[in-house]
C-alpha cells in the first residue's frame, strides 16, 4: 500500500513539477542545488569541527548544537509557513489502508522538511567518527544508532506537531492568534536578550537545560559514550511516536468543513461591505469589479489572512529587538519601518502577486471567457494586492506610532515611497510569473507557502535584481550625504519601475494569449494523495 500511495503521488507531481517545460525543471533543480549546496557546506564545516576539536569542547557544545538542530527541525517549518508534504487524509479515508501504514508514510514525508538537517547530522556523525579522541571508527554503530534515534524522535514529534497545528490553523478564530503565539515563541529569547531583560533570574534554569533528561543532551551523551546514556532519548522517542500517532488519528477524524462552518460572511458588518465597495468610487468597471472581487475573496481566504497577520507581526517582532538595543545606535532603527514594510511586501507576494491566479484555480477561466482584456484583469489584481500591501504598512506604522520608537514622519513617508516603488517592480515581475508558472493554491492549507520550486527560484533570481535601483538610491544618499540625491535616484527607480511594470505586464498578457490552455490546465490540476507545499 505504501509504495502505491507514493507512486500515485509521484505520478501526480510529475507534471506539475517537471512536466510543464524544460526551463521550469532546470530552474527547480538549480534552486534545489543552491539550497542543499549551502547545507552541504555547513555539513562539511560541522564534520571538520567535530573531527578536530578536543573532547571537552565537544562535550560542552554538542548538546547545544543538537538543541539548535531540534529547534530548527520543529520551529522552522512553522516560522517559514511551509510544512512540506503530507497526506491529504480526506482522499485516503475511502481506502482500506491501515492507519499504521498511513502514519508511516506521514513520517517519511516529514523528511521533506528536514533534508538539510539530515545532511548536517551526517556531517556531525562522520566528524565524530574521524575524531580519535572520541573512539574513532569502531564507534560507528553507536554513533549511527544515536543519530538515527535522534532523527526518529524529531520526525515523530514534527509529524505530531504538524497535525496538531494544521488542525488548529483550520479553526477560525484561533488561527491568527496561534500564528502570533508561534512567532512570539520563536523570537522571544532574542527580544529578551536585546532589551536587557533580567536574564540572571533565569540562570538557575541553565543546569536543568543541560540535564540528561532532555533528548538533545542525552543524544549528545549517547554519541560520546554509548548506551545506556541514551535511555531518556529512547523514552522521548517512544513518547514522540505515541504523540505523533495520537495526533495523526485525531487529524483523520478532523472535519475541516465543520471547523470552518462559520466561514459564511453572514455576520459581515455593513461597514466592511462598504469598504469593499470603495474602489468603485474611484475606478471604472471592469477594473473596479475585479478589485472588489479580489478584496472580498482574499479577505475570506484563511491562508491569505494568516500570511497578512504574519506580514506585519513577524516583521515587527523580528526587527524590533534590533531597534530597541540599549545604549547603541543601530543602523536598523533608521530603516526599521522600511525593512518591515519590505518584509511584508515579500511575504504577501506568495498569496497575491507571485501566483495571482492561484486561489482562483480553475475558475480563472472566467477571465478568459469574459469580454475583458487580461491586462485589465491583472491590473485589478495588482491594485487589490497594492491595497493590502499598504494596509499592512499602515498597520505597522500605527504600531510604531504607539510604541516609543521615535520614528519621524519623514521615515514613515520614506517607507511608503520605497515600498510603492518596490511594489511596481515585484508586481510587474509577478504578473509575468503568474502566467508563466501558474499553480493552483489550496485555500485550506493555511500553513503552506504559495511560492515553491520554480516560483521560489524566480523570486530568488529576480528579487535582488528588482530591488537594485532602490538599493542604488540608498547608496546615493550614503555616498553624497544628500537627501536630494536619494530622492533623485528614487525618482529614477520609480520611472524604471513603471517601465518594467508595463513591459512585464505586456509580456504576461502576450504570453497568456498564446499559453491560455496551458495556464488553465495548470490551475485546474488536482492534487495527488498528498499535499506537497
Amino acid at each position, binding site marked *: 500500500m505504501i509504495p502505491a500511495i507514493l507512486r500515485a503521488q509521484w505520478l501526480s507531481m510529475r507534471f506539475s513539477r517537471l512536466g510543464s517545460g524544460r526551463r521550469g525543471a532546470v530552474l527547480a533543480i538549480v534552486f534545489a542545488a543552491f539550497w542543499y549546496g549551502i547545507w552541504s557546506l555547513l555539513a562539511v564545516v560541522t564534520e571538520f569541527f567535530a573531527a578536530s576539536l578536543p573532547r571537552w569542547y565537544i562535550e560542552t557544545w554538542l548538546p547545544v548544537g543538537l538543541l539548535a538542530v531540534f529547534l530548527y527541525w520543529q520551529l522552522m517549518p512553522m516560522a517559514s509557513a511551509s510544512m512540506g508534504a503530507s497526506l491529504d487524509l480526506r482522499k485516503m479515508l475511502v481506502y482500506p489502508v491501515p492507519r499504521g501504514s498511513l502514519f508511516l508514510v506521514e513520517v517519511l514525508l516529514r523528511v521533506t522538511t528536514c533534508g538539510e538537517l539530515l545532511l548536517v547530522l551526517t556531517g556531525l556523525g562522520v566528524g565524530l567518527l574521524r575524531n580519535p579522541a572520541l573512539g574513532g571508527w569502531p564507534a560507528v554503530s553507536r554513533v549511527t544508532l544515536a543519530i538515527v534515534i535522534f532523527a526518529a524522535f524529531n520526525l515523530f514529534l514534527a509529524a505530531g506537531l504538524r497535525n496538531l497545528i494544521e488542525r488548529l490553523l483550520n479553526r477560525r478564530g484561533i488561527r491568527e492568534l496561534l500564528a502570533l503565539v508561534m512567532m512570539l515563541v520563536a523570537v522571544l529569547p532574542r527580544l529578551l536578550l536585546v532589551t536587557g531583560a533580567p536574564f540572571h533570574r533565569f540562570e538557575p534554569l541553565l543546569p536543568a537545560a543541560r540535564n540528561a533528561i532532555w533528548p538533545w543532551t542525552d543524544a549528545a551523551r549517547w554519541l560520546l559514550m554509548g548506551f545506556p546514556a541514551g535511555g531518556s532519548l529512547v523514552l522521548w522517542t517512544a513518547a514522540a511516536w505515541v504523540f505523533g500517532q495520537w495526533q495523526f488519528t485525531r487529524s483523520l477524524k478532523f472535519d475541516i468543513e465543520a471547523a470552518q462552518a462559520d*466561514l*459564511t*460572511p*453572514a455576520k*459581515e458588518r455593513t461597514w466592511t461591505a462598504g469598504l469593499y465597495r470603495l474602489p*468603485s468610487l474611484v475606478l471604472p*468597471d*471592469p477594473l*473596479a*469589479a*475585479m478589485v*472588489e*472581487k479580489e478584496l*472580498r*475573496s*482574499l479577505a*475570506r*481566504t484563511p491562508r491569505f489572512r494568516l500570511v497578512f497577520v504574519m506580514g506585519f507581526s513577524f516583521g515587527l517582532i523580528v526587527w524590533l529587538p534590533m531597534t530597541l538595543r540599549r545604549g547603541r545606535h543601530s543602523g536598523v532603527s533608521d530603516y526599521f519601518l522600511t525593512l518591515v514594510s519590505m518584509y511584508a511586501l515579500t511575504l504577501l507576494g506568495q498569496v497575491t502577486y507571485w501566483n495571482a491566479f492561484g*486561489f*482562483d484555480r*480553475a*475558475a480563472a*477561466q*472566467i477571465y*478568459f*471567457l*469574459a*469580454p*475583458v*482584456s487580461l491586462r485589465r484583469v491583472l491590473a485589478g489584481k495588482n491594485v487589490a494586492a497594492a491595497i493590502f500591501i499598504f494596509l499592512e504598512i499602515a498597520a505597522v506604522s500605527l504600531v510604531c506610532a504607539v510604541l516609543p520608537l521615535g520614528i519621524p514622519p519623514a521615515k514613515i513617508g520614506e517607507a511608503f515611497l520605497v515600498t510603492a516603488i518596490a511594489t511596481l517592480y515585484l508586481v510587474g515581475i509577478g504578473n509575468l510569473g503568474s502566467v508563466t508558472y501558474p499553480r493552483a493554491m489550496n*485555500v485550506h492549507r493555511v500553513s503552506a507557502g504559495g511560492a515553491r520550486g520554480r516560483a521560489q527560484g524566480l523570486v530568488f533570481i529576480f528579487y535582488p535584481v528588482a530591488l537594485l535601483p532602490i538599493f542604488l538610491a540608498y547608496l546615493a544618499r550614503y555616498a553624497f550625504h544628500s537627501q536630494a540625491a536619494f530622492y533623485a535616484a528614487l525618482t529614477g527607480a520609480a520611472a524604471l519601475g513603471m517601465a518594467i511594470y508595463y513591459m512585464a505586464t505586456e509580456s504576461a498578457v502576450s504570453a497568456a494569449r*498564446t499559453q*491560455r*490552455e496551458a495556464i*488553465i490546465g495548470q490551475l485546474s490540476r488536482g492534487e495527488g494523495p498528498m499535499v506537497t507545499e
Partner: protein
Amino acid sequence: MSDSPAIAVHGLRKVYGDKAAVDGLDLTVPRGCFFGFLGPNGAGKSTTIRMLTGLVPPTGGAIELLGMRLPEQELAIKGRIGLVPDESLLFDRLTGGEFLEFVGRMYGLPRAVALERAASLLGLFELRESRKLIAEYSKGMRKRVAMAASLIHHPDLFLMDEPFEGVDAVGARLMKDILLDQVRRGATIFLTSHVLEVVERLCDRVAIIDKGRIVHEGDMNDLRAGTESLEDVFVRVVGAEREFHELEWLR
C-alpha cells in the same frame, strides 16, 4: 448580419500530440435553434465548446459565431455568449449574489443594473441564501449559479456543457423552462448532455460526434417521426453495441 448562422464551423481541428481530439469538424447552427451536441465520453464535445469560447486555440479550421470571426473579434463575441461549463467555474470565496454581480459588471453592465439582475436571478433560481459562500454550495446549487451567471448579460448564444448534471428534478425543470424561453425570444442554445431523453425533448436539431468527427446530424422532428429513439440512433452511430464480457473474478 442577423442572417448569418449562430455557429458556423469549418474544418475545425484540435490535435494533442499525435491524437486528434477534434478532426475536421463542419457544423452550422442556425439562429434561434436549440441544438444538441452529443457524443460518447472523450468524443471531443468539451474540446469543441472550449474552442468555440476561445479557451482553446484550434489547430486548424475556422470559427464564426453570430457572424463574427474568432479569434479576430474575440471580445465582441464573448460579450454576446453565455457559457455554462462542464465544471462550475465559480469563485468560491464570493456569495452567489456577489458572484453574479461581478460577472454582470465584467460583461459591461452598470453596477446598479448588475446588482438588480443578480438579485432577480437569485430569486428565479431559488438561491435566496445569498449570504452563503459558494464554497459551501452543493453541486446542484453551483450549477444554478453558473446558469444564472450565463443569463445575466442577456446573451444571444448559449454554450452549455452538461448543464443539468447534478441538478435535482425541480431545478432541472426550472432550467429547461428558462432555456426554452430564451429560444422563444430568439437566442440560440448549443447544448451537450449525456441525458438523451432531455435532448430528445428539448432540441430542434442534434449532431453526434465520435472520435472528433460528426457521425450523424439531423432534425429532431424527423427522428420523432421515425421508429428509432435518439438512444437507438446514438448507440448505432457510435458503434457502442458491444458485447458484454463477464470478468471471471467478478462473478
